[in-house]
């Protein structure tokens, strides 16, 4: 018998001690952190989550998934500038139509259902041009999915919830 999906509800403002306790200094372990092990090119991806007023969100949680390497989870409430950082392996392209990318999930107070997006890399322009998913996104919005290279192994990926630079979010 087909069963209806249990509805999503917001993660709310008080998830830190339950989901990212070590990062926030609570006496409880967490199942995943901002560091994802893996052999290959080690990179750091830093960004902020920006609301419709242009302000950085202090109570969001972002998760990333790399099937080749693992799962990461960080809250935006502990860095002074309210940024998140993932130290991870840089993924390789998975096929001629799949450029290197990282799946990201965003949760926060004010989101009744979580958001999915993807992180691509500025210095993989050739692979990006043949990526099926990027090509399915209207051209002017593709740049919102591409992390900027700020130095060797350093990338910037800001997530804009609204406004002119609103990030592409996926229904998947």
């Amino acid at each position, binding site marked *: 018998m*087909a*069963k*209806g*999906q*249990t*509805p*999503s*509800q*917001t*993660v*709310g*403002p*008080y*998830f*830190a*001690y*339950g*989901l990212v306790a070590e990062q926030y200094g*609570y*006496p*409880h*372990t967490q*199942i995943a952190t901002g560091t994802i092990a893996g052999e290959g090119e080690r990179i750091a991806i830093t960004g902020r989550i920006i*609301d*419709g*007023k242009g302000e950085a969100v202090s*109570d969001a949680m972002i998760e990333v*998934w*790399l*099937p080749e390497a*693992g*799962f990461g989870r960080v809250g935006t409430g502990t860095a002074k500038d309210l940024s998140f950082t993932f130290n991870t392996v840089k993924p390789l392209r*998975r096929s001629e139509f*799949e450029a290197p*990318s990282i*799946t990201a*999930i965003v*949760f926060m*107070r*004010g*989101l*009744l*259902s*979580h*958001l*999915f997006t993807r992180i691509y890399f500025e210095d993989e322009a050739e692979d990006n041009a043949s990526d*099926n*998913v990027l090509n*399915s*996104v209207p051209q002017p*919005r593709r740049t919102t999915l591409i992390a900027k290279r700020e130095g060797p192994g350093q990338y910037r990926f800001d997530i804009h*919830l*609204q406004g002119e630079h*609103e*990030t*592409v*979010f*996926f*229904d*998947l």
Partner: protein
Amino acid sequence: MSATNSSARDWSSHPPLLYPPYRSTLLRAPTRPLVPLKHERSERSGPVYGHDRIGALDHDLTRNGARTGEPLGERIIVTGRVLDEAGRPIRNSLIEIWQANAAGRYIHKVDQHGAPIDPNFFGGGRCITDGDGRYRFLTIKPGAYPWGNHPNAWRPNHIHLSLLGPTIASRLVTQMYFPGDPLLAHDPIFQGTPEKARNRLISSFSLDATEEGFALGYVFDIVLRGSNETPFEHH
């Protein structure tokens, strides 16, 4: 890592991104339509955390935060099954929970509600579903608490749950409510859920799950997206 297929997120069961009565959605809900994405390897897989990652008291919130004695409040048992849309159990899957104490106060540093912290209650826990998809927590019934959404706004009693499920696509964060709570009618987070699906968020009191002389039992089954069949690749 597990690999499986997942049906679409059924938006007739989930709250919309913009729901103005819940004021925090106004500056945080994306304004442009979601872009459909055909599942690739990344969406057909997800992290797996086994029993080895779970501490002996992780499922027992009546004991995992105790320092000098037992927490105050009404002891409850929260149990149920995690199922796919075909009703099949989702086994060996992680559930994390967090909640306010009996007085309606979270241990979180940002919570400024004037109700007391309970020195013997932390409010966070986790467990892994068994071979029937079943989970079981021991905890304290959380209290209602005020919030700033609108005048005289109070959250109904609730427990937050986070589930990984078999794939990233089946990821779910939700809240479990209690039967008969008069605050449900006034809560924009609950009311933002499509009407036909709201009752799926309310647990049932169960005498079978109740332990004589110890704790009341509530049953809450959770249905994740997808049909947990033998994995195969779409081309």
